[in-house]
């Protein structure tokens, strides 16, 4: 229909002209279309991350205990979470990778006493959540005061003036009406036992929460612990979920900075045996490697095949910057609070009492070495023979199938394939890492080499043809001294952070003459409360007096966010 355009008059006219049964049909169609759009438009939340810390205010030199909770509605999405801590100038002060076990990852990090006074931001996310941007990251702001900062007074004054700004209007924690939290008393004296009961109503199957009992700070730091709605993302697979291992992702660009497609990228790590993974770059030059727990704590080398000078760029997983702003609301004397807190820490340090407990979790993840060969080759140990100056001599005297010759001020090494009777250039591995050329091993003499393994026949690793293998193990990690001529990227694959927890002091066993000025009385990063059951914790007040608070944060099994705050007083002994 020429000149036809859809407007509301046309639609209403069109509908009016229809007979009754067709109107009903159109109505139903529209309503179903609407329902379809509603379902299609709302992203199913694949996972949500929330972060909680033991306190909101710290003194530089103290430990921060945190818990990261993952809610994935029963889907097992990610096994690893990331944490970055940045200052207000968007500079990272701490980064860490955490293993998620039973939807929780917890740990602690040290606040270096060189940190300046200010607000710091903890940002947590999984690799998969990076697809959706910072909107879905969990954010928590903390205040760190430095004991030696001369401008502490100025800083607290600045904060007080800022907090009057309407922009920083923050709401106090909303208590979840369903959660029942009871203390045996409202007012306690120093070193007195507290019985903390948390009960979940019958309607909720269970809840995973973190519980903190701490000195109430006169500050309200707004942070977004979680984000409920996912923005639409068409590229949800740019960053894959990490299960059983982590993903190393990067790009290869050619010398003109264009994406280099279909290049073979190799990855090997420092080990006593040759190991290799390879992938081909995609259209945009992107490549990915899956790193199982075998790689944790090892040095990894990523290189291109042949004499390729295209630069390799490895993508960092750690978020740099600040999410949103750093709002703060002061509702008391922050300066005196910080000064007292600093004194407490000073006293605790003098007595060198440690309340942090680190424990290693049993590693249940599968770990395997991607071996290049699994059968025994021809092994030579140069130490068993007369001393030889360099690898050229070693090859000449000791290696039956491998020969090195000099050509145009360089070296060429070739191996004879015993099946095909052809010479070809083998893959050379030094301390497990794939090298680019035989020239890299020429300086190695008999004393440096522990063993040389030769496989003089063509092998296949997937669809990669290895015309022969030379695997050299050294006595003293000679790979670290090797010179690289072509593009190579080296990195250390970090171990997930160890699990650590706050050890609640047993006050009844500590003599009175030893001061225990702990603003943190209890920290449980992951407490699973079952429906209708009461979880009880027995804790003690310390020598600190004033107002304390019980803070409970987490998720219930039906996906509701749980937030609870209860105050109580600790007075000095008369």
């Amino acid at each position, binding site marked *: 229909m020429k000149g036809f355009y859809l407007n509301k008059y046309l639609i209403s006219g069109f509908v009016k002209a229809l007979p009754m049964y067709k109107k009903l049909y159109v109505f139903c169609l529209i309503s*179903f279309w609407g329902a379809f759009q509603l*379902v299609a438009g709302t992203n199913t939340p694949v996972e949500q991350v929330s972060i909680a810390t033991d306190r909101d205010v710290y003194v530089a030199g103290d430990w921060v205990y945190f818990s990261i909770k993952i809610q994935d509605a029963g889907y097992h999405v990610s096994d690893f979470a990331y944490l970055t801590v940045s200052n207000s100038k968007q500079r990272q002060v701490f980064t860490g990778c955490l293993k998620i076990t039973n939807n929780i990852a917890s740990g602690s990090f040290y606040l270096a006493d060189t940190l300046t006074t200010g607000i710091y931001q903890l940002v947590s996310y999984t690799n998969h959540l990076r697809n959706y941007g910072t909107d879905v990251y969990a954010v928590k702001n903390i205040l760190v005061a430095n004991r030696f900062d001369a401008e502490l007074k100025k800083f607290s004054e600045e904060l007080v003036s800022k907090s009057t700004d309407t922009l920083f209007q923050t709401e106090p924690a909303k208590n979840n009406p369903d959660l029942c939290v009871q203390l045996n008393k409202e007012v306690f004296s120093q070193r007195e036992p507290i019985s903390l009961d948390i009960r979940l109503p019958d309607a909720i199957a269970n809840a995973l929460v973190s519980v903190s009992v701490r000195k109430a700070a006169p500050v309200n730091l707004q942070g977004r612990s979680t984000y409920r709605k996912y923005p639409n993302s068409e590229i949800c697979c740019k960053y894959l979920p990490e299960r059983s291992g982590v993903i190393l992702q990067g790009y290869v660009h050619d010398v003109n900075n264009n994406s280099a497609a279909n290049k073979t990228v190799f990855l090997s790590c420092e080990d006593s045996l040759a190991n290799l993974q390879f992938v081909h770059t995609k259209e945009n030059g992107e490549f990915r490697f899956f790193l199982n727990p075998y790689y944790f704590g090892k040095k990894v080398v990523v290189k291109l095949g042949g004499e390729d000078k295209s630069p390799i760029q490895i993508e960092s997983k750690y978020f740099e910057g600040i999410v949103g702003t750093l709002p703060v609301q002061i509702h008391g004397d922050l300066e005196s609070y910080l000064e007292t807190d600093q004194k407490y820490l000073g006293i605790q340090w003098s007595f060198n009492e440690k309340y942090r407990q680190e424990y290693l979790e049993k590693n249940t993840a599968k770990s395997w070495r991607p071996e290049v060969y699994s059968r025994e080759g021809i092994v030579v140990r140069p130490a068993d023979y007369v001393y030889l100056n360099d690898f050229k001599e070693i090859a000449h005297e000791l290696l039956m199938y491998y020969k090195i010759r000099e050509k145009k001020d360089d070296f060429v090494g070739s191996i004879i394939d015993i099946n095909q009777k052809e010479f070809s250039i083998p893959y050379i591995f030094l301390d497990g890492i794939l090298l680019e050329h035989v020239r890299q091993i020429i300086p190695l003499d008999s004393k440096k080499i522990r063993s040389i393994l030769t496989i003089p026949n063509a*092998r296949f690793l997937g669809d990669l043809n290895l015309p022969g293998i030379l695997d050299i193990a050294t006595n003293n990690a000679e790979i670290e001294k090797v010179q690289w001529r072509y593009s190579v990227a080296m990195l250390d694959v970090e171990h997930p952070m160890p699990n650590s927890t706050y050890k609640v002091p047993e006050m009844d066993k500590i003599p009175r003459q030893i001061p225990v000025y702990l603003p943190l009385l209890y920290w449980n990063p992951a407490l699973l409360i079952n429906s209708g059951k009461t979880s009880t914790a027995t804790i003690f007040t310390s020598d600190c007096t004033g107002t304390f608070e019980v803070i409970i944060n987490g998720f219930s099994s039906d996906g509701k966010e749980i937030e609870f705050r209860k105050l109580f007083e600790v007075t000095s002994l008369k």
Partner: protein
Amino acid sequence: MIMRYLKYVLFLIVCWPVVFIQGQSTIACTCDTILDSLMESQLAGDLYLQLDRGVGSQYFTDEWLKGEVYLSNKTVVRNKYLKYNQYLDKLMWLTPANHQQIMLDKEPIEGFCISNNFGNKYYFQKIPIKVDMSPDSLLVFGEVLYQNKISLYAYRKVILTGYEVASTGSYYKNIYTVNTIYFFMLENGRTIGFKKYRKHNIIQLFPDKKDQIVAKLKELKQRHFRNEADLKNITKVLNEVL
């Protein structure tokens, strides 16, 4: 008139779950598929050049069949063209890119499964067997015939039984014959091998349960042991009795 409305309403009611499922699928992403392929291990082995063409086959199936390889790192490599060489007791893989025949390393393989064109699946598992005169046990690929507390495996070894002058008369051709040995694997991982189907021989392997086994076989009217199906039946009986 009512019927006319009703058919539209019914049509839409029928469509409702379809719309719902369709709506959900639009937001599903392919991350899992990409991740699975990224996590898949690479098969490794030596290039194999088969020169010996004798009488009788060295292979379990002469055709390249699609199958899965179960690796010791607990990963599964799927959808590969495989052939089991019973003479070498090695699994062969046909590379998709250049159609090279690769003799896969035995150490990282725990087992494999090949499916023929009729949908029949053959499972093989690495089992330890005791070889005469050898102090150590040997790991071989045994075909899984029955799996339970007591499992039954068939080690279908191809052996060289002789030579035959080729029709040209210029060379000898090897004669290969299949020699199957059956193994019971007990719960503790110990294997008991036997070559013949005789009831007496099998019962002798479990002397302390002899009466119960005989009674059970009598009850099931299992008198003869002529083929592998009968062997599977006796393994079932053993699982019930032991």
